[in-house]
């Protein structure tokens, strides 16, 4: 009778797994691969940063090269804005212009023979009071009233009719419609000429206030 003898002559540290992948080799290998991968990733990013930095320098150089040409167009645009704004401000002035000459030239046609003017007045515009908060803003109202005041005396047989006729003509005659909006005799402005003595008691002093077309600065 025979018995098999099994001799195990391996030390513990000489035992290997049957698997061809050894953990003690693979773990450091994976570690190294991870390091290499990280370094590769970093180098890729560094390359990208370098490329972008070069591109940035190139674009900046291009921009510097175009600066003078661009400054010229900016100057032209600024000048255009300035011109447009100046024209707009001058247009305010032009639109406010009121012509007196033609209407005043037609005035003798409607003045009765027994009416004589002693004074004709168009008051000058009042001085501008700037708003201390916005001194550079200029006037904010776009409207300026204009008036024409006629003072005179009327004699003859029917001085009242003569003055009323004149008033009516100023108010309604198309010759004055471009200038005069409305004409009226202020209260108390139609009175007897007491200063001239008893002989001329029939002479009447009068005033006619004409509201002219306003000057519109817009």
């Amino acid at each position, binding site marked *: 009778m025979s018995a098999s003898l099994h001799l195990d002559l391996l030390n513990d*540290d000489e035992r290997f797994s049957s698997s061809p992948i050894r953990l*003690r*080799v693979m*773990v*450091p290998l*994976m*570690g190294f691969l*991870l390091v290499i991968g990280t370094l590769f990733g*970093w180098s890729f*990013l*560094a390359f*990208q940063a370098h490329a*972008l930095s070069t*591109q*940035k320098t190139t*674009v900046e150089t*291009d*921009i510097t090269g*175009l*600066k003078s040409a*661009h*400054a010229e*167009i*900016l100057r*032209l*645009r*600024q*000048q*255009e804005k*300035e*011109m447009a*704004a*100046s*024209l*707009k*401000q*001058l247009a*305010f*002035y032009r639109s*406010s*212009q*009121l012509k*007196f*000459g*033609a209407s*005043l030239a037609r*005035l*003798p046609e409607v003045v009765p023979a027994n009416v004589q*003017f002693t*004074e004709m*007045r*168009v008051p*000058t*515009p009042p001085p*501008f009071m700037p708003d201390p908060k916005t001194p*550079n803003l*200029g006037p904010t109202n*776009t409207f300026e009233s204009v008036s024409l005041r006629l003072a005179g005396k009327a004699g003859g047989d029917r001085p009242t009719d003569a003055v009323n006729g004149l008033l009516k003509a100023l108010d309604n005659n198309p010759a004055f419609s471009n200038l005069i909006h409305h004409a009226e005799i202020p209260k108390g402005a139609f009175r007897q000429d007491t200063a001239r003595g008893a002989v001329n008691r029939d002479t009447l002093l009068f005033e006619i206030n004409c509201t002219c077309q306003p*000057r519109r*600065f817009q």
Partner: protein
Amino acid sequence: MSVDVSFFQNLKAPTKLALLIAAGCVAVCVAVLVLAVLPTRTQVYTLRTEVAGLNATLANMKTDIAGTEKQRAKTDALTKERDTLLATGEIEPLLGSLAMRGKALLDPVAQQTGFAIENVKELPLLPLQVPAPAPEQLYGRQPIEFTGKGSFAQIVAFIAAVEEQQPLATLSGLLVLSQPQTPEIHKAIVTFEWPAKGEKQKTPAAKPAP
């Protein structure tokens, strides 16, 4: 706090070495990630944004520059329009005096119409309404007062002729007074105004390219 290292001590020497190397690699990776990768990635993002911005600026500049001639024509047309308008009636000082300029302008008209100018006076400038956006060079209304004598027909002819010959002159004041001594000749104070240069505002300069 204590760390149980008995598990590690029981491992075989090669395994221990392998784990230590792996741990070292992970530490190196973390260090590279924190010290190099993340800052570089931030730098890349920043650069990418900057380059995109610069490229947009460059493209805008190129587009702007391509339109230079068109812009020049537009600007020149407006400049010409303004200069033509001002040439028709902006009042400028003559030898430092606006009154002298006014007299020089209207003396021929007065002679032509028979109105005798005796005195000329410059009144304070009245500001004009300011549009938005405001121009750098502001304009105002410059009144000039002419005192003289003439018949009513001469005074009116003078006013009408000035309005015709000076397109930007506007009558802004008038006083005709009858003279008892000379019933046909009246004293007249005629005030005309013209547009004139006013203050120059300081405005921010055109935005330069970055």
